[in-house]
């Protein structure tokens, strides 16, 4: 039995989980999800780390592997770091064993990963440097429209005539949206238009990695946006991608979960090789 912690440092939130892993027997013990809101991520991560240990009724000495992912490369108290596409793939399998691909929608970049049934990464793709159609953009627009994050999905689903967002640039697209408001386009239609354009970019990634088996798991915070999920599914049908996109209430934790599980796996492998020292 290996006890491990996974910490996913995102641009918006830090997700921290504690797992006990014994071969195929994987148990999720504790969790935290903290909004960063201009605070120091390193301190927040430390606090979350202590709090999950406390929640599990353990002490620091009980933790055998602390794995970071996301932007957590520099956290000093971690044992090792896994890159986010590795961890999201594993987290997806944990949350939905049918998953064979993951679409992770972060604040700035989108990522698509294809994996096998064990969470082994086969191929992947990230969006390029230009941030058109990113989560950040959606956040800005919803603020502008006076709409709360958790309302977006609902509203978008009410769209009857989605408006096309043509600009490739997120900044110029803001003006596009302002123009739409002034032309009297309804909020649902605007949001759905943005969702569609984001979905287009994301699904293009799926097409590149040739997602063709199982289901496509949506991970990250935006995964809970049902409107975006609808757009993604519609876009997948249009682009003839044979899988279906699904989410999970714990989608935002996928990265942290994967980190914890891989951490435990790596711990066992290193212990086997008798080279535990390298890891720390």
């Amino acid at each position, binding site marked *: 039995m290996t006890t491990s912690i996974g910490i996913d440092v995102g641009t918006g939130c830090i997700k921290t989980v504690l797992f006990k892993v014994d071969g195929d027997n994987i148990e999720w013990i504790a969790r935290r999800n903290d909004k960063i809101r201009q605070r120091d991520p390193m301190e927040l991560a430390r606090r979350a780390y202590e709090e999950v240990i406390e929640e599990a009724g353990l002490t620091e000495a009980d933790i055998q592997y602390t794995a970071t992912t996301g*932007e957590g*490369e520099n956290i000093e108290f971690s044992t090792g*770091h*896994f*890159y*986010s*596409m*590795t961890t999201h793939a594993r987290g997806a399998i944990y949350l939905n064993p049918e998953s064979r691909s993951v679409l992770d929608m972060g604040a700035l*970049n989108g990522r698509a*990963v294809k994996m096998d049934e064990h969470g*082994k*990464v*086969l*191929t*992947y793709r*990230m969006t*390029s*440097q230009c941030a058109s159609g990113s989560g950040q953009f959606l956040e800005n627009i919803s603020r502008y429209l006076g709409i709360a994050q958790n309302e977006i999905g609902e509203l978008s689903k009410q769209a009857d005539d989605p408006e096309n967002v043509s600009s490739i640039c997120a900044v110029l697209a803001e003006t596009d949206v302002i123009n739409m408001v002034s032309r009297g386009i309804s909020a649902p239609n605007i949001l759905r238009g943005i969702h569609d354009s984001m979905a287009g970019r994301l699904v293009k990634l799926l097409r590149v990695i040739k997602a063709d088996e199982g289901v496509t798991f949506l991970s990250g915070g935006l995964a809970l946006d049902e409107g975006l999920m609808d757009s993604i599914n519609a876009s997948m049908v249009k682009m003839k991608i044979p899988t279906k996109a699904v989410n999970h209430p714990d989608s935002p934790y996928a990265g942290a979960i994967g980190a914890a599980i*891989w951490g435990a*796996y*790596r711990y066992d492998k290193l212990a086997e090789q008798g080279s535990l020292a*390298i890891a720390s």
Partner: protein
Amino acid sequence: MSTAEIIARCEELYEDTTFAASRAWKEAVPGRKVVGFMPVYIPEEIIHAAGMLPLGILGGGDNLEVIHGDAFYQSYICRIPRSTIELGLTGRLDFVDGMLFPSICDVIRNLSGMWKLMKPGVYAKYFDVPQNYRDDIGGEYYQNEMQELRHDMEKLSGNTITDEALNNSIAIYNEHRQLVRDVYAMRSAEPWKVPSSEVYLVMRAGQVLPVEEHIVMLKEYLAAVVKEDKPIRDKCRIITCGSFCEQPPLNMIKSIEMAGCYVVDDDYMLVNRWLMEEVPTDGDPIKSLADAFLHHSADSSAKYCDTQEKVGQYLLDSVIKNKAEGVIFAAPSFCDPALLERPLLSAKMSENNVPHISFKYAENSGQMQPIREQAGTFADSIKLWS
């Protein structure tokens, strides 16, 4: 000298966008001349034999503030021509007596004409190479082109280029090329001792130093590396491909290694090892250079591949020879040759079960996080499952 000292010297040369070392060489003896050239390949021997310094110009890197260069290029054109123009317009290349623009892509090709417009008094030449590899067709054309270049170099330098002098230069460059190959072989054998960033810097030094000086440096580096005692890390062996022209920022080269990769081959500064075998030094030197070009030269996307089977073979050969576990296609954004060829190369890798990923960069890319993430995931996947 220790590797640290050698690398410090190389770093200094690398960061200096005023080319002080090459200027110093020129000023040391009155009448010396310098001929600049762009990637990928030109026969440096001809310049050398005329007593001039061939100066490899690889853009401005991430330290040069590009103002006027940007004014001449749209956003969808790669970075190297803009920083090169900037170097030209800000007087940094005023000591250069001639510029050669090899045949690599439309951008460099057009740059040759822009140079003529920009610097009417300075010798500037587009140097074409054959894409036809028959001795009697492409070979003959190329020999004539080289003769023309030889003639131009004689005029520029005021020195006659005899066959003996040219053969002598070939011999010196043969030695240089051998040492370069040795460094690469050493890195491939013991990558933990020879970080890619070091190899890169040492090779970059060769672009601005006289070949004789660089030969000494390479020998010193090889000797110093043997004495290095660095631990072996848990990393995977990869090859980077696609960076034959515009160079990535040094930070990117470091980031790839930091993300868990050992780079065992790359295509930076191919001019150092374009000719892959010893060039004979006893015959007609122009013919020898032409033969070497046609039949024993490195491949890159800038060359036409005359048969379907040969497409990407050079990369596959390198994967096998260097026991690479994967290939990272890293091309400059908007680089036509690299990006057009990439689907062909990646298909070849897939057919042969070589894992590969691809991303784009610019010589002044500042954000390494996406690069680390992609290279890191690639390394993770090789490490966890192979």
